[in-house]
């Protein structure tokens, strides 16, 4: 396997230009929504609103203003996290979702049949159906570009290097140094999200530097694997089946006892 590759997204230098969104759509030939008709959301500068089958990068805009001129903008270019332990890959029943030699997670469009179980399994709400292909799609970390030694389209286009691409180990070191730098400059809320290989889902190969709680950015605090419920849920169902079976047998036994009682009662009645 080649070296694990990924993204480090430093949200503090994101300027919300959406060059990443455009570069992603452009390179991956993803269709526009609503036939290209403008759709205004009314929510800040965000008309994209979510990741999906034909939107693999989404710049989130969070306005934190208590009063005019008091507050800040938070911007985050969201993307598939390429989890080291990926929930989507775990549940995919067709084998369409694979882990590549770059330790990234890719959905093979010629295998996926659109059952959508990966959409429900993703702890981050990244995946959705692409209406053109009818299959589930998401960021491939530009597998085609990486295979020939190119950098993914979004990080290549990012004008502030908010999105950085490279070997995960190198990115982690760079990110840790950046947190220290920010803290020294007085931004005490600076923290990394998903950079810890010991952390939730084995760490994220696309991790982030945040300056607020994860929930503020619409991210789960402790993302988990869907299989956490498998054993308990299955065991409870088996126990339920055993109880229903027992209830069935008890019901039939009750009926047999009644039959026997009726038979015993009949000769006595005849004797009277």
């Amino acid at each position, binding site marked *: 396997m080649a070296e694990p590759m990924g993204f480090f997204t430093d949200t503090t230098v994101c300027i919300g230009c959406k060059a990443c969104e455009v570069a992603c759509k452009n390179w991956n030939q993803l269709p526009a929504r609503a036939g290209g008709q403008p759709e205004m959301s009314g*929510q800040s500068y*965000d008309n994209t609103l*979510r990741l*999906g089958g034909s939107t693999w990068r989404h710049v*989130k*805009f*969070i306005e934190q203003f208590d009063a005019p001129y008091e507050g800040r903008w938070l911007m*985050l270019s969201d993307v598939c996290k390429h989890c080291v332990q990926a929930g989507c890959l*775990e*549940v*995919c*029943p*067709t*084998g*369409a979702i694979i882990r590549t030699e770059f330790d990234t997670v890719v959905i093979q469009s*010629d*295998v*996926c*049949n*659109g*059952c*959508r*179980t990966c*959409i*429900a*399994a993703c*702890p*981050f*709400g990244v995946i*959705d*159906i692409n209406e053109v292909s009818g*299959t*589930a799609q998401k960021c491939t970390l530009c597998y085609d570009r990486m295979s020939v030694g190119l950098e993914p389209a979004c990080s290549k286009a990012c004008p502030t290097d908010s999105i950085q691409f490279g070997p995960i180990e190198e990115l982690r070191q760079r990110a840790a140094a950046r947190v220290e730098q920010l803290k020294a400059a007085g931004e005490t809320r600076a923290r990394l999200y998903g950079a810890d290989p010991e952390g939730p889902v084995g760490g994220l190969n696309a991790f982030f530097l945040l300056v607020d709680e994860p929930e503020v*950015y*619409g*991210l*789960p*605090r402790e*993302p*988990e694997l869907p*299989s956490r*419920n*498998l054993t*308990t*849920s*299955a065991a*409870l*169902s*088996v126990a*339920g*089946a055993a109880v*229903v*079976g027992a*209830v*069935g*047998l*008890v*019901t*039939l036994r009750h*009926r047999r006892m009644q039959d026997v009682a009726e038979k015993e009662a009949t000769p006595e009645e005849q004797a009277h």
Partner: protein
Amino acid sequence: MPPDTFFTQPPHWQWYIIFYFFVGGIAGGCFFLSALLQLFGRPDDRPIIRLGYYIAFVGVAISGILLIVDLGRPDRFWHMMIQNKTGRPMFKYWSPMSVGAWGLMLFGGFSFLAALGAAYGDGRLRWRLAGRLAEPPLSTIIALAGGVMGFFLAGYTGVLLSVTNRPIWADSSWLGILYLLSAASSAAAVLILLARRQIPDAAGLDGLERFDKYVLVLELVALAIFLITLGSASRAFLNAWGAVLLLVVVAGILVPLLIGFGRMRQFRGRTLTAGTAAALVLLGGFMLRVVTIFPSEQVSVVGSRVVRP
């Protein structure tokens, strides 16, 4: 803050899937009840046994169609069973969707064989091979294996929902057992309703009604535990869905129980029969799936905020 499961997107599992969960559960439950009566019942149970096997077969056929139609690419439904690139079998025991696809196919096979046997039994089919299916040892093997698969089909759907990261579904491990119990009570209700119409003075009806009562009590307990284990995720019911849930409990479980135990005989001058109770149980079983699926489907993240119904 809402639980982590709220920061995800819905898989668009809606009416096709809800109908599948309902019909598939009834198919599995009917097969189990028929198998139970075949193995441990009386000879005069046979009309009900055959009815159960017919329902199971029709139910599983409808289930397969619903699932295929619901796929984004229905032409690729077979990718669940065979790897399209290598031609090798596709099976992941840790993925409920994968296990479910195989389970549904196996159950489909058993219910087909059982339906053939039943058709021979009531004289609709004069096929010597079908005759063998209707007699031991083959009929016993089919009843045992199909009964187990029936349970599987009734319960795995809830497990499938729990093995996700979605609100309500993944916030409790009790959805599988709840769906299984609801499938058992719905199946008994379908058998009661159809047997009352089609088989005059059918034997086994009393037993089915008693079975339904006991299972409803278990279902009520499982539903209560399910709601408690949801914890802070139960906020997904703090809207009109909460009222629907309450209606499911009252009309789909409590009223049938009161009728069953003879505590409620009339409603506005109308006599309440076991048929009324069965119809309510059936409606409750369907609505239980509606009320556990839609409130979750309607939670999503828009921009950076969680939006719920």
